[in-house]
């Protein structure tokens, strides 16, 4: 392969303002984190509510939650993103549509679309984790809580959820990493997150190998750090005398 490697490229001027290429990566990483964290807050909150709904007695609430999961889990993420970005704004009431298309910057409208899209998509997956976490608990725990006089809400709040969330930390970690990786779809609607900045660097500098090597490295280090963080959380909330907990 006849390729001229140049690792110094990241410190060279982009020709746009006074920026060097490294600035682009830093700014891209910032957007990636901003998208993923905001999406994760939506996913965790909505997913927990839906997960609880799926385990409640009765028909209506579980059916609503199940329908949600099937809908969001069975349509490709990219299709969902295009729907949120290109279709949904047209369906909004006119003032809201105008605000979305002209009132805010293109970056902001792309950001909002991708956060909503990733949040709702990941919520379906978090829902399933929460549901399985609750269902993995012995049925007697629910009975014991009710027998003490707890309402259904108190039973979830004080007895079922604290245990369920501990059980599902490992699969939840996986979803947490996924939302960071999935945030790269934002590059397809023009949000200048990490992948978009990488492509831009490759096009401007022609140093495509260096650009993608750095991007790979950043994603890798980012996700390893998140895994480390989640392992720390898991250790912190470990119950003495329980699986893997110290005696």
């Amino acid at each position, binding site marked *: 392969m006849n390729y001229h490697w140049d690792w110094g490229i990241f410190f060279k001027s982009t020709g746009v303002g006074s920026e060097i290429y490294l600035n682009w990566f830093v700014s891209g990483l910032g957007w990636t984190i901003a998208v993923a964290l905001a999406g994760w807050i939506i996913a965790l909150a909505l997913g927990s509510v839906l997960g609880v709904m799926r385990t409640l007695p009765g028909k209506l609430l579980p059916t609503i939650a199940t329908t949600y999961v099937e809908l969001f889990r069975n349509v490709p993420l990219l299709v969902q993103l295009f729907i949120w970005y290109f279709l949904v704004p047209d369906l909004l009431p006119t003032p809201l549509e105008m605000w979305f298309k002209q009132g805010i910057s293109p970056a902001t409208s792309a950001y909002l679309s991708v956060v909503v899209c990733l949040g709702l998509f990941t919520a379906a997956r978090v829902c399933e984790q929460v549901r399985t976490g609750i269902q993995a608990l012995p049925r007697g725990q629910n009975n014991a809580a009710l027998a003490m006089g*707890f309402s259904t809400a108190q039973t979830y709040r004080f007895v079922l959820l604290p245990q369920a969330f501990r059980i599902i930390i490992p699969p939840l970690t996986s979803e947490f990493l996924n939302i960071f990786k999935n945030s790269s779809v934002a590059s397809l609607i023009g949000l200048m997150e990490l992948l978009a900045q990488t492509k831009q660097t490759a096009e401007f500098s022609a140093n495509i190998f260096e650009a993608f090597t750095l991007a790979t490295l950043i994603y890798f280090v980012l996700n390893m750090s998140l895994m480390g963080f989640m392992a720390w959380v898991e250790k912190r909330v470990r119950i003495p005398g329980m699986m893997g907990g110290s005696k």
Partner: protein
Amino acid sequence: MSAMISINNVSKWYGDFQVLTDCTTGVKKGEVVVVCGPSGSGKSTLIKCVNALEPFQKGEIIVDGIAVGDPKTDLPKLRSRVGMVFQHFELFPHLSITENLAIAQVKVLGRSQDEAREKGLKLLDRVGLKAHAHKFPGQLSGGQQQRVAIARALAMDPIAMLFDEPTSALDPEMINEVLDVMTELAQEGMTMMCVTHEMGFARRVAHRVIFMDKGAIVEDCDKDAFFGDINARSERARQFLSKILQH
């Protein structure tokens, strides 16, 4: 003596399968009633109906003047006044022993943390486990956990206690420590309904013995009559007793 728990003509079905057939009995204030019978005879189901952990389709159960099956009944309130002890203890594994004893006092009865803690410790001392207050359930033996579970139920100042096979999941060595606590409780005049196979306990402590088979109450008589006048018992009860008492 007035009836604390009265069970009138209760029947229950799982789909087409009838698990309880016209059960009628009662427990008077201060009375200790032992419910025995072969596996699958409906003993546990019946006792769970008393505090509405299991719904029933026919008949009525009245606890301290309140109809359990009435949709208008405030079930959490009713349950908070009836203590229940389970086969598998069902302590809350994510909470320390102190917290297990205090949580329902605080969240259901509205007692202050200090008051609840103090009451919990007093009861823990009574079941001989004060030194374990800071531990978690997973760090205690089965017998110790069950004693904590009894203390936890007593902390709510119950008007009656329900025991659902409290010693069935215990190592033989630990059965007595739990039965001792129950015996002491009975001697203090607690109203108790106990599903158990411990015939020694029944003989020593119970006032009445109920024998169930195939979802129906076959025998419901005085302790002395049940164990003493064996020839007056039904064929099925004689069979059961001969098997259970020969060792």
